[in-house]
């Protein structure tokens, strides 16, 4: 059984079938929609460039070919490990032999009513209806999701205020200098970017800041991160803590006391697993990780005797205005950033990230694929920083501070 019918859950079911599993296969999805793609929601769907008929991840004929017991529009509400049973919101009890948890995340919210969030297709359509030339949009949170929505809203002629608690947006993720470069694009496109401000509540007509100021808007988008959907697993005996905690194979770890039942794996945004390539536990909310991890844990579940650790180089991309940002690796907690190709001011560059003496990540803006791929391969090969990044490199003389 696979619980969660988005990218990770779909990849898991497809892999189970492709690898020869011919038994009963149940796919549970809380949303009423067949599996669909989320990255376009904050891009082409919000802008109106695409209609929603481009979102399904598979054609209905391809889904039919998987011979699934597909149950959409019903959430899983409980897991009884001893009985190997998942309990659904409608009271149904569904038994399983092996289980893959792919229940994803949901947006964090702020106190007060009336704000939009952006996670589902319904969220995107509701926000799109509020965007029009001259309308004022307040975006709370200048992470990648908030930044993409701000860029789309500017493109539609909205007046956009982007509010961010950190002094430099995205600095914790990509470093201060790269964060500044990405923020500058918003300023250049007429976004009112306000950093170092804390929003305490959504109110009628806007948002309230910690100092009492009201920032007015016709619509408010709250994009302040997400929470893993693990409530249905609490007290079931598995270890939960900012995600479902898994080992290097993606198998769920036991809490205490340890129950006697195995065969539970997790994939996608909800899974916090140990990535042996980087030597740290991580939970990755990226589209590509969802598919790769869904495939990996499906194989591990199916062939426990030939299990392989899941050791991907994480990848994400973000489209903002005319910029395409692409990043490989694990950038968080880096010690140093160096520009190894291009230059920051032209918004055409490759930045490399050092953690200890390892090259652990690269982030590129506006660079051709051949300029990025060797760096990705170096990260996968656990390349040492001092052997990979020439000390004399920095174009534009920029050796940057991390964290």
């Amino acid at each position, binding site marked *: 059984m696979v619980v969660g019918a988005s990218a990770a859950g779909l990849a898991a079911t497809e*892999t189970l079938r492709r690898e020869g599993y011919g038994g009963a296969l149940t796919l549970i999805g809380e949303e009423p929609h067949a599996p669909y793609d989320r990255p376009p929601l904050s891009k082409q769907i919000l802008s109106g460039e695409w209609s929603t008929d481009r979102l399904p991840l598979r054609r209905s004929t391809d889904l039919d070919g998987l011979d699934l017991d597909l149950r959409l529009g019903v959430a899983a509400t409980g897991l009884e490990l001893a009985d190997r049973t998942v309990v659904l919101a409608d009271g149904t009890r569904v038994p399983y032999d092996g289980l893959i948890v792919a229940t994803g995340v949901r947006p964090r919210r702020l106190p007060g009513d009336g704000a939009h969030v952006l996670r589902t297709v319904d969220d995107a359509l509701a926000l799109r209806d509020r965007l029009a030339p001259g309308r004022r949009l307040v975006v709370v949170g200048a992470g990648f999701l908030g930044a993409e929505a701000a860029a789309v809203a500017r493109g539609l002629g909205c007046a956009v205020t982007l509010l961010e608690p950190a002094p430099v947006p995205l600095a914790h993720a990509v470093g201060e200098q790269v964060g500044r470069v990405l923020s500058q694009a918003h300023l250049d496109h007429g976004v009112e970017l306000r950093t170092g401000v804390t929003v305490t509540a959504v109110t009628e007509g806007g948002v309230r800041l910690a100092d009492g100021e009201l920032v007015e808007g016709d619509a408010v988008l709250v994009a302040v991160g997400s929470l893993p959907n693990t409530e249905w697993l609490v007290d079931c005996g598995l270890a939960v803590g900012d995600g479902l905690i898994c080992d290097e194979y993606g198998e769920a770890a036991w809490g205490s006391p340890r129950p006697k039942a195995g065969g539970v794996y997790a994939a996608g945004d909800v899974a916090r697993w140990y990535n042996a390539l980087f030597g740290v536990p991580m939970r990755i909310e990226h589209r590509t990780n969802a598919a790769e991890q869904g495939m990996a844990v499906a194989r591990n579940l199916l062939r426990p005797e030939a299990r392989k650790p899941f050791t991907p180089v994480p*990848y994400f991309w973000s*489209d903002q205005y005319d910029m*395409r940002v692409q990043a490989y690796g694990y950038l968080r907690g880096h010690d140093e950033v160096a520009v190894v190709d291009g230059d920051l001011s032209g918004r055409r560059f490759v930045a490399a990230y050092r953690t200890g003496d390892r090259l652990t990540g690269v982030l590129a803006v506006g660079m051709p*694929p051949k300029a990025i791929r060797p760096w990705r391969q170096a990260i996968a090969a656990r390349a040492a920083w001092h052997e990979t990044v020439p000390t004399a490199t920095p174009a534009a003389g920029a050796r940057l501070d991390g964290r």
Partner: protein
Amino acid sequence: MRVELDEPKCVAAGQCVMASPEVFDQREEDGVAILLEERPGDELLDGVREAVAVCPAAALRLVEE
């Protein structure tokens, strides 16, 4: 088997090239995928299936003929 690439959907991630370099490449200017072999031989199909599965834009499809 025939590979279908929905080019406007491609997000230039390059995952397909890593999964199946014999069948896919990327355009130099914008990274959009290029299909090198529309009808890849059987020995390449495992890689192509991997590429279809990991494509972050669901822009690839392998269809029986």
